[in-house]
């Protein structure tokens, strides 16, 4: 068990190093001089040179890389070009908002997806199954940057039930969470169906039915529980999609999270901030996947021995 844990954690190290390297290279992909691009054409050569120095861009590439990695390891991602505040501080301030939105979206997704997937699997091959899966496919196809404004027109403007944008009350959370969670619900519903269908074909479910266990109990108590294991991985993997989706949802609903900070920073060519946001989101994603793998090892002992 411990060997599996250690191996899996060690495997994540080169990936994280690769992620950091790619994020480091971003600023060097800016066409021309990044400092000039940040300050604009009207800036004086002295100001540009000063910014270049403060960003460390005047150093040899290898030195820059070492400094970036060393600082990032200590949690120092430099200073925001726009505000002068430490990037890490600004990001940390916005983590609760993004986390709140992501968790709410995932809860909504599961509340829709699991019943839908179970219904589709139980009534496999019927019109019910077909309708549920068509609904799911439609959910994946509707872009959240279109759904968001539409929901806002209906529920905030026309009906006046919910606030249009911003963060504060539970009411503020509803529309962003639905618009972010729907696509996820669609994917999860398909996965729930597939995963449950696998389990329903297993002998233990038939054995339970033969012993007189009701169909509801056979699905709910036996098959569904086992189908939750692969579903857990899918949910964790989709966490990345939620984080990316949050970038758009936060922009639409003026939700003060990391996604909105990222898009605002892109607009201001605040490259240290952009690098910081991208690095944080990627590291979070890798960590969530790692934790899922470790949990998977606990839930399903067969994984450890492979």
């Amino acid at each position, binding site marked *: 068990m411990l060997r599996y844990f250690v191996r899996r954690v060690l495997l994540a190290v080169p990936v994280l190093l690769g992620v950091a390297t790619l994020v480091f290279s971003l600023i060097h992909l800016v066409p021309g001089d990044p400092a000039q691009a940040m300050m604009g054409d009207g800036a004086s050569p002295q100001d540009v040179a000063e910014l270049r120095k403060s960003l460390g861009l005047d150093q040899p590439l290898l030195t820059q890389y070492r400094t970036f990695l060393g600082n990032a390891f200590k949690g120092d991602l430099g200073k925001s070009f726009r505000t002068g505040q430490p990037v890490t501080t600004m990001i940390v301030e916005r983590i609760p908002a993004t986390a709140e939105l992501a968790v709410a979206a995932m809860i909504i997704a599961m509340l829709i997806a699991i019943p839908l997937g179970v219904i589709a699997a139980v009534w496999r091959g019927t019109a019910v199954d077909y309708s549920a899966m068509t609904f799911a496919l439609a959910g994946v196809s509707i*872009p959240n*940057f279109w759904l968001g404004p539409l929901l806002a027109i209906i529920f905030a403007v026309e009906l006046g039930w919910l606030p249009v944008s911003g963060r504060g009350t539970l009411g503020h959370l509803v529309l962003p969470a639905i618009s972010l969670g729907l696509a996820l619900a669609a994917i999860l519903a398909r996965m729930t169906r597939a995963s449950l269908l696998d389990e329903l074909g297993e002998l233990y479910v038939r054995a339970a039915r033969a012993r007189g266990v009701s169909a509801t109990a056979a699905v709910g108590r036996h098959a569904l529980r086992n189908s939750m294991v692969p579903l857990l991985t899918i949910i964790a993997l989709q966490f990345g999609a939620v984080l990316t989706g949050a970038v758009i949802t936060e922009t639409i609903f003026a939700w003060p999270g990391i996604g909105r900070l990222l898009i605002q920073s892109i607009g201001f060519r605040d490259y240290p901030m952009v690098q910081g946001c*991208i690095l944080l989101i990627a590291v979070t994603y890798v960590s969530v996947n790692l934790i899922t793998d470790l949990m998977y090892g606990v839930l399903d002992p067969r994984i450890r021995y492979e």
Partner: protein
Amino acid sequence: MSSLKSGQALTGLVIVAFVVSAAVLAPLLLPWDPATQDLPNRLEGPTWQHWFGLDELGRDILARVLLGARVSLLVGIVVVGVSSVAGMAIGGVSGYYGGRIDQVIGRVMDVLMAFPGMLLAIALVAVLGPSLVNVVLALAVIGWVGYARLVRGQVLRAREFEYVTAAKALGAGTNRILVRHVLPTALPPLLVQATLGMAGAILSEAALSFLGLGVQPPTPSWGTMINGGRVHLLDAPHLTIFPGLFLAIVVLGFNFLGDGLRDALDPKRK
């Protein structure tokens, strides 16, 4: 169910065919030029003359939606084309040769997969600058990995087939074996992934354009149009509704088609 599913695939095919023909024939079908402005009637809702209404500059929204379809389809085709060819070559080499090459490619893929979905595309376009070319480049950079993983897996399986051993025994060179015998086995799943990939690329382009990182005005893109319509959500919601509706329908079309193809090409799913 299978007839229902094939009906779904057919619906997908009809949608895709309809949109492709509408995009190609748009200039012949419409009396309105997408750039012509009718400022006195700006933001006018749908009428018999202008089915989808007019935008903030008095331009015909239907004409712009159809021109936007050209942009979307073009991005989809180029992104899927480049990603699948690159993915096939890299995945094929990685799976067939194995060893050190496979390990290096594997690590690169691990790093690219460590970035959630479109985040890396957003980052790349943010530094390269917003433009259609950079959108295609960014989407191809994240796109090839999926194809490469798929092809690598198929190649690892196909490498062990007897007819491959036979070809080797007959003296066929590595390139010939790879191109003529091994890679073709990966084509059916690749076709499915490419169809679903069209949906993904179109959606991603629209998302990037919505964020102001993609196609720049005045070129019409569905994402840019939806973003532009947000300002007029209260007084002229048709600015947002029609481009979004088209986008959702096209993406659904490709998803239906991809799903249908998967069922048709994978005997286990029947």
